[in-house]
């Protein structure tokens, strides 16, 4: 089942990738080729097999740890500024984005 150009445009939108018409055409070709590779999955009878998310979960009892919901680092303006130093737009401890509300 090949992906249409509208489907590819929808996927690009979901992925938040702005592609021009030429790039969308290229993406359509590439994705259909990739689907050709991954389609072979469908030929495998997996009835009754549980999906495996963590590679060691089938041989051991795996649980994901959660940390306690407590402050672990001392906060300071300097620390905040250091953590925000890579932001493309920041001011007074806030990340700047284009206006969302008129």
């Amino acid at each position, binding site marked *: 089942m090949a992906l249409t150009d509208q489907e590819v445009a929808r996927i690009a939108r979901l992925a938040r*990738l702005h592609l021009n018409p030429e790039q969308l055409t290229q993406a359509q070709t*590439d994705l259909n080729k990739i689907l050709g590779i991954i389609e072979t999955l469908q030929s495998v009878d997996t009835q009754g097999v549980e999906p495996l998310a963590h590679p060691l979960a089938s041989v051991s009892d795996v649980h994901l740890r959660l940390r306690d919901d407590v402050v672990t680092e001392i906060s300071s303006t300097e620390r905040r500024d250091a953590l925000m130093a890579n932001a493309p737009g920041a001011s007074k401890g806030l990340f700047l984005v284009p206006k969302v509300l008129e």
Partner: protein
Amino acid sequence: MSNALQRYPNIAALHQALSSRQLSATELAQDCLRKIELHAGLNAFVHIDADLTLAQAREADNLLATGRGSLLTGLPIAHKDVFVTQGWRSTAGSNMLKQYTSPFDATVVHNLRAAGCVTLGKLNCDEFAMGSGNKHSAFGPTHNPWDTSAVPGGSSGASAAAVAAKLVIAATGTDTGGSVRQPAALCGVTGIKPTYGAVSRYGMIAYGSSLDQAGPLASSALDLVDLLDVMSGFDNKDSTSAEHCKGVPNAPGRIRDEFNEADKSFHSNATQPLKGLRIGVPREFFGEGLSSEVAQAIEEALKQFEKLGAKRVDISLPRTALSIPAYYVIAPAEASSNLSRYDGVRYGHRSASYSDLEDMSARSRAEGFGSEVKRRILIGTYVLSHGYYDAYYLQAQRLRRMIVDDFQAALTQHCDVIMGPVTPTVAQPIDHNQNDPTADWLADIYTLGLNLAGLPGMSIPCGFGTGASGKPLPIGLQVIGNYFDEGRLLAVAHQFQQVTDWHQRVAGQA
């Protein structure tokens, strides 16, 4: 003082020279910096800061001068640029993170630093570790030191190239689908991907979180013992970090102890040290697509292991070919989720022109990511999207369990280790498969299953083939063990390296 790493080619020799003060860590770092400059054409390093390096070297010298140095104090290493570092930029080989400087060190970086290693800089790689030839880097391709028209492999291509060219004694890499083992094989160095959870992923720029593991590359299994032993350990900052490995706490010393124990038991039989070791050879690793020169080198290596006393067992990993579709659903799905964090808001590239918030993200991402990353994000988004999730993503995860079961059946019933090729061919020319972006994916057939199963595996040099340009290019043997068997795997590899000299061959002097 030039070519210190050629004079002292392993950690033991270098440590001896440093601790006896025949060589200072500062002289050594300067020597490596010069050599990196001399080999700038390899394009192995993406960021060097001599001041930062030399400051670390002086600290190492202070420790060494007062007898407080450890085995790794003063050793020149470099990090794949997917490990975040304070000081050096951390780019993941992407324009998205071209200017990114981390406010913290990755745990792996911290551990090696704490052990006294001196960082020479950051190493080129495929963008966000997606690729197998180091061709998909925003900073241009890295070249193979054995033949500069060939790829060094990937995604930890420059890590392998830097070790092979003796720019550093060792390098860190990451392995999501073969990215430590494959470049190690193609550059003739020794590399290990540990069991999933053995090494902390904290500060490793994420690609496929259920597959990603960090591992070292060096010139011998013996050197890898020293490095992996301090790199590994439980880390509370990684929710998938293993607390225990086969009942033993995941902490420095675990791998060394297991290595020493195995090595000692091998010593009890002087002529046939590996007597009793069953080597599973999966017949699916020797099918169509495997070049005759790689097949022959693997065969010779297996014969060498038999001479050492090991027994060869024919095994089957029936779903080997299916690891390709399973991996190329699961890894892109995880990548599309992981890479959603690059939105042009908190860090990373932001487009110069946009209409609104969503457009800003979409344009920033389209400009910041390279073509291979975009392809994988798109396919990952598709397989996770409504209506396709069951057919692709869950189906791939079911297949993943079957692949794990295949490995377990082999490793619990038939053999102690599994051996086979790492790659179907020697390193390909850099312009190979340029017009077919997915053709390279199929060459990952022997390495992907291991990541899906979370098992540890190594690549060790075992011979040479001939590249497209006629030059000799290295071949690697893959050695796979059961969960948390790293120490024993390294001991098995060490036996092979005591009776062969493939790992001692130097690029340009084969």
